[in-house]
């Protein structure tokens, strides 16, 4: 590992100034991804600016029913927060489906959104990888791609974003609050992560050196009827093979409103707007849930080893929506 300087920031503006002023600087959250990648020499910062003592550590329910979450709130505290459990269960379930108890105690909201792909070639500095080293090629295209994308990929990169939390936030129309060298702004979560195109090394629409200061979830009363379903290779402590976050509002037997997002299928959490569109106003039946999933997945282009993801996501969509519909009638 390369040597580095360490600075513990106490003021967000100071943290941004320090990172912007140094070409090889990185923010340090819980370290569960960055420290790992530093050990693998995938990331080699010269300066770490520790953000965990910034005053961004609280979850604030807003008077209109929304929620503001500080960037340094730990994943476990967010999952256990009584208001999140009651009003946004999809978020609690997504957080609790990720990593392990110890890692959730460490991981921060900001770091979770910016965690890097688990593509094995990205993590292996001996292999070509356009994301790690632009222009070297993509080893996964014809290599181990079972865990990688079926939607939105390019021949430059077929990686997926591995976060569970981000999938729930995508379904909830969350907004990411960032402090960039030029000032503060908000970015809708669904526009925060980029598709790879020909620049897979650029992962977000945030300016270089930007600091995530928080996440805002707008009020959504029917989000009490929401859940997250994750399929993985073992019962616990594994990244998703595919996942679905869903929020469902029924009017009698009809779908009044629905929000669906998919995980582990693309370079960013995948908001399934075509499926949502197909369902609005329709009877909440298994058949319609399946047709809606087909609508979204028509654009899927599976890689040689991950064709199973198309039917997996289809089935997860049907099961998740059916569970929500059933719970609503109880």
């Amino acid at each position, binding site marked *: 590992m390369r040597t580095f300087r360490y600075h513990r920031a106490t003021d967000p503006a100071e943290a941004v100034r320090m990172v912007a002023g140094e070409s090889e600087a990185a923010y340090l959250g819980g370290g569960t991804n960055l420290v790992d990648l530093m050990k693998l020499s995938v990331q080699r910062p010269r300066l770490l600016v520790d953000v965990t003592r910034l005053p961004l550590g609280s979850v604030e329910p807003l008077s209109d029913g929304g929620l503001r979450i500080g960037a340094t709130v730990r994943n476990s505290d967010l999952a256990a927060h009584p208001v999140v459990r009651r009003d946004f269960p999809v978020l609690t379930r997504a957080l609790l489906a990720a990593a392990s108890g110890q890692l959730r105690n*460490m991981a921060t909201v900001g770091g979770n959104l910016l965690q890097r792909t688990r593509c094995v070639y990205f993590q292996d500095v001996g292999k070509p990888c356009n994301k790690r080293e632009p222009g070297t090629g993509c080893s996964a295209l014809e290599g181990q791609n079972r865990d990688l994308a079926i939607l939105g990929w390019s021949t430059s990169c077929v990686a997926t974003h591995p976060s569970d939390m981000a999938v729930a936030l995508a379904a909830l129309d969350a907004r990411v609050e960032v402090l960039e060298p030029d000032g503060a702004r908000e970015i809708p979560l669904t526009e925060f992560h980029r598709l790879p195109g020909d620049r897979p090394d650029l992962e977000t629409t945030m300016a270089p050196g930007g600091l995530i200061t928080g996440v805002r979830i707008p009020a959504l009363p029917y989000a009490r009827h929401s859940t997250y379903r994750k399929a993985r290779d073992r019962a616990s402590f594994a990244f998703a093979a595919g996942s679905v976050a869903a929020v469902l509002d029924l009017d009698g037997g009809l779908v009044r409103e629905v929000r669906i997002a998919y995980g582990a299928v693309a370079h960013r959490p995948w908001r399934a707007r075509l499926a949502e569109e197909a369902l609005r106003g329709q009877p909440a039946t298994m058949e319609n849930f399946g047709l809606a999933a087909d609508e979204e997945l028509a654009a899927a282009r599976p890689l040689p080893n991950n064709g199973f993801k198309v039917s997996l996501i289809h089935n997860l969509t049907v099961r998740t929506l059916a569970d929500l519909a059933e719970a609503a009638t109880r």
Partner: protein
Amino acid sequence: MPEETERSSVTLAVNGQQHRLRLDNRTTLLDALREHLGLIGAKKGCDHGQCGSCTVLLDGRRVKSCLIFAVAASGSAVVSVEGLADGDDLQPLQQCFIDHDAFQCGYCTSGQLCSATGMLDEVRKGWPSVVTGDLAAGPVRLTEEEIRERMSGNLCRCAAYPQIVAAIRATATAEAVR
């Protein structure tokens, strides 16, 4: 506040004892405990956050010490497996591990003990897990399924899992009865 060089002064309260170390910033909390403080209870299994054998309590919460730089933990209180017992008086959890044969080679055991200590505390606080049916419901019923899910961050190469679950269950049951 550590100064900005590639080494830092690190203060750690470990098992109730205050230490001041001068460390290369690359030193993980795990290496600080093992290599600099001679506390070799916490084990290095994978060094990548995957096995749980390095689990300690940091300011009361279970964490994986291989993914934390010591400098980032400076100012915090650490409890490692050496700090669980009160002298020769074992914690009920430790005694239950012995009573239930909850280890074979023992390599994962210190991590299991620290993790279970933190986990039981999370249960006392009413934290749900992904297998908890009703998120809104009050106290957690610590079923076998709950224990397995909550302890999934600790691997055991010897697969002493059934005994580990039994030991933790016995600890929780004894606590509930008291």
